[in-house]
Each structure stands twice: as C-alpha cells, then as structure tokens.
C-alpha cells in the first residue's frame, strides 16, 4: 500500500476542507472497500480523512418514515427493531451481506459507495475502462460469469455487487448529501447511480468531496410487506449471483402497489418500474408474477458465461413476490 497523509475530521467542514486542498483525498469510514482496493493499488489516495467522528448517527422513525444516519454500521441497522419490523427488505439485505465482522465495520454511506467486484477492475495487470478510462474491457470477451446483463455498454459490463442499495432503491430511498461548500441536497437513490455508457469511471452523481449524511425511506404498506431474496454459489458470505428486493401491498387479492428491484444483474442497482406497473391492479397470482419477471428482464443482454442469470433472476423475482404475497 502506498503511504498517505491522515487526519481525523472533527467536523464536516474540516472533512470537506481537506478535499478543497487535496483533490486526491478520500474519506475513510469503515474502510472495508477502500483499504482492500488500496492494498491492490486500484485506489491510491494521497490522504485519508477519517469521518467516523462526524455526528451522522441514529436510526429513527420520522413522520415520513425511516431515517438512517450515514455513519451507522450495517450490523446495527440490520438488527434494528424498527427496520426489521417496518422495512424487512432493508434488514434482510444487510444481514445477508458480507460477514458479521465486515458488517460491524462498514458504514451505511460507505456501503452505498462500494465499488464493483469485477476481477479485472481489481487486478492492475489488466486494462479496465473503469479504472483507467480508454484502456479497454477484458471482461466482455473474458471471464464474465458474475457480470451484468442489464445496463451494460461496450465500455463496461461490471455489475453493481451490493445488497443494501437494491432494497433501498426498491423502497424509494432518498440520499441526503452535503457538498464541499456546506450545501445540502437530496437525491432519490434512483437518480444516484449511473450506467457506464462512455464514462464507466463515473458510478454515481456524487460530487468530489460531497458527503452522504443520511438515508431516508418513506413508510408504506409495500415497505412493511417487503423482502430481499439473495441467491449465491455458497450458503453464506458470498456476493449474489442474482438478488431481488420486492414489496407488495395486496388488498383482497388485488395488488395496490408494487416495488421491484434486482441486484447483481445490472450495472447499477436495478429498479424494474415497468414490472411494477404491470402488477398494479392485478391479482397476486404466479402467472402475473411470471409476466412481471419476464418484463423486468426484457432488455437483458447476456455474455458468454452469464446467460443463466436471465432465468435465475426471473425465478428469484417470482419466488420473492410469492413470499410477500403470502
């Protein structure tokens, strides 16, 4: 690992100030992705700014729903009673992610900013358009079993690997951000992640030096009746092959509202709004769930090793919908 300067930020002002002076600085929260990638020389920040002392804490019920401070840890949010009862998909996505140790370390803000797990991105011996724009993408004609089938470009087919963002994007979460100039803004998570297009190095709309301060999720019946289903090669402690986050409000057998998102199939956490629209007003039957799942995967473009994801994702989605429809 290259050496770097280090400071502990006592305030957001100090943290963002460090960025004004040093464009190569990086924020350190749990460090579980950052230090891993620094050891591989994939990331080489000149300075780490420890933001763990910033007061972005609390898991609270607000008049509008749920508010999670960005510095809360995955384990604490995953086992929080309010989250478990009112937003089960969020709790499940956290407790099925990583390991107990990593969940104790990783912050909510950092989790949402985790990088792709494409093996070529992680290995500096290979070119990678995400790591070094214009150098090429060996995954397109290489090992691509874990890669994306939705939202890809001829520059990048890496899949977004996380779990939490899939559940949050299904439940209309909003990110609260603070800019380097101290200006606050809110961004729906749906507008936060970017598909690679011609700029695969840019994964989110976060500005340099901007901090995530909190995540809010509106309360809703489809949030209370939500689920995160993760399918893996191993029983535990593995990234998803595919995952589904769903929420349904079913009254008298008819679907009043639906939320559908997929993980590890898209280049970003993949919300399937067309599938949701298809379900609203319909009966909660397997046939309708199958039709919605087919629509969600309609634009899929598999590569050599990941064609299995098309069917696996549909089956995962159907099972998740059946589970919440109960």
């Amino acid at each position, binding site marked *: 690992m290259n*050496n770097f*300067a*280090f400071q502990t930020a006592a305030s957001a002002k100090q943290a963002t100030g460090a960025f004004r002076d040093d464009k190569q600085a990086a924020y350190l929260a749990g460090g579980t992705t950052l*230090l891993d990638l620094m050891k591989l020389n994939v990331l080489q920040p000149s300075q780490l700014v420890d933001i763990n002392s910033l007061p972005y804490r609390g898991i609270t019920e607000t008049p509008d729903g749920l508010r999670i401070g960005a510095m809360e840890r995955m384990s604490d949010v995953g086992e929080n009673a309010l989250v478990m009862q009112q937003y089960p998909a969020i709790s499940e996505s956290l407790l099925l992610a990583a*390991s*107990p*140790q*990593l969940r104790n370390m990783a912050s909510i803000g950092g989790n949402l900013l985790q990088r792709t797990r494409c093996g070529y991105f992680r290995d500096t011996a290979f070119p990678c358009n995400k790591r070094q724009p214009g150098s090429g993408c060996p995954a397109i004609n290489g090992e691509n079993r874990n890669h994306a089938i939705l939202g890809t470009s001829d520059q990048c087919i890496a899949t977004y690997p996380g779990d939490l963002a899939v559940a949050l994007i299904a439940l209309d979460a909003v990110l609260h951000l603070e800019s380097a100039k101290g200006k606050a803004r809110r961004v729906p998570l749906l507008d936060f992640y970017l598909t690679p297009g011609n700029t695969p190095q840019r994964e989110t709309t976060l500005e340099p030096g901007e901090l995530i301060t909190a995540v809010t999720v509106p309360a809703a019946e489809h949030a209370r009746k939500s689920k995160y289903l993760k399918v893996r090669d191993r*029983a535990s402690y593995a990234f998803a092959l595919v995952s589904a986050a769903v929420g349904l409000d079913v009254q008298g057998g008819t679907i009043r509202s639906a939320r559908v998102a997929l993980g590890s199939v898209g280049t970003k956490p993949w919300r399937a709004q067309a599938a949701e629209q298809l379900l609203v007003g319909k009966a909660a039957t397997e046939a309708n769930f199958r039709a919605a799942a087919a629509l969600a995967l309609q634009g899929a473009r598999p590569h050599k090793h990941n064609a299995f994801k098309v069917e696996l994702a549909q089956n995962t989605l159907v099972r998740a919908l059946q589970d919440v429809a109960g």
Partner: protein
Amino acid sequence: MHPDTFDPTAGGPPPEQRPDDGSRRTFIKQASGILGLAVAPPFISQAEKLAAYTGKVEGATEMKLKVNGSIRTLRLEPRVTLLDALRENLNLTGSKKGCDQGQCGACTVLVDGRRVNSCLTLAITTQGKEITTIEGLAKGEELHPMQAAFLKHDGFQCGYCTPGQICSAVACVQEGHTKNDAEIREWMSGNLCRCGAYPNIVAAIKEVAGKGDGKS
C-alpha cells in the same frame, strides 16, 4: 486486567457488577485490576484524542493503542493496519494474516467488544478503543471457556484459523447468535477453515453458549 476492559467471558454484567462470590477468580480480577491501574497511565479521553489528531499526520507518528488492557505506545505510519501493528510491532502473533483482504477472518479481533477484521482496520483509527486479541482471552493459566471448548471438541486441525475463530466465536455468543446450529454457522461464516473443522467448531460454540446466559 484494567477494570474497564471489555470482559470476553461476559454474557452477564461486567465483573465489578456481579455479586461478589468471593472466589479466587474474582480476587485475581480485582487484584490484577488494581495492578493494571498502577501500571497503565490514565487513558486518553475521546476529546483529547480528537484534539490530538485533528491535525494532518504525514509519515510515522506516535500512537497509543490499548491492547488486552494495557496501553502500548507505538510509532507507526498511518498505513499500518491493526493486524500488522499487533504482529510486527507488539509481537502478538496470535492474530493471523490469511488473505489480508477481509475474506478469511483469520485476523479477527475484538474492538470495543465487537469483532472486526484487523487486516482492514488502520491501527491509527483504533486509538481510544479497547482491543482484545486471542492473547487477551485467558486469565493467566486459566483458559477462556471458548478456548477450553475448542480443545475439548477438537475444533481445529492445523490451527491457523483458530485464533480468529475463537475471537469471532466469543463475540457470536455475546451477540446471542447461537439459537441453533444453522444460526451459529451463518454468524460464523466470516471465518473460513480450510481443514473443515466446522462441525467441531459449532459443537464448541454450542457448549459455551449453553453454559452461558441461556441464549442458546
């Protein structure tokens, strides 16, 4: 042991709040607590820590780590991980470097009572926290119940993953994630064992959890 040190044997209240049974163990704890106080300088408060480290650090810098109850002063670069500080600078080689990427759990230690991967933790960020390693679990010659249970159930073969397994298992019991075998396996999934001693590890954890506070 410093009196406010995290007590890995707990399940119940910290030792000083337990009814005084007048046992040898209690006496040793109290005695070593007093001794610990005499040796250790007053520990820096959170506020002092912030004041000391809000400035930018470049290159090697002095840091104080509280490991297994005693304060250790080191001069390290900010890039040094907690694992390397323990192994290379403090000669606490119980914690193992397996993958060095947070994937195997061999480096698991407890920081403020929570299990973490010390390979993905910078030493400089653990100042002001209680670090407990495998070396800090036994009370003198008396093994921690989890260490004894691993021996009894043969919860290892080559032993390389064992210190991480035991630290993780101590936390797993404290967290109460020991309802049944499946729950123990799920909550121990961050610790890999290439010898495949998993059934015996589960048996050891089950025994300790069962003896503890009825969470099993």
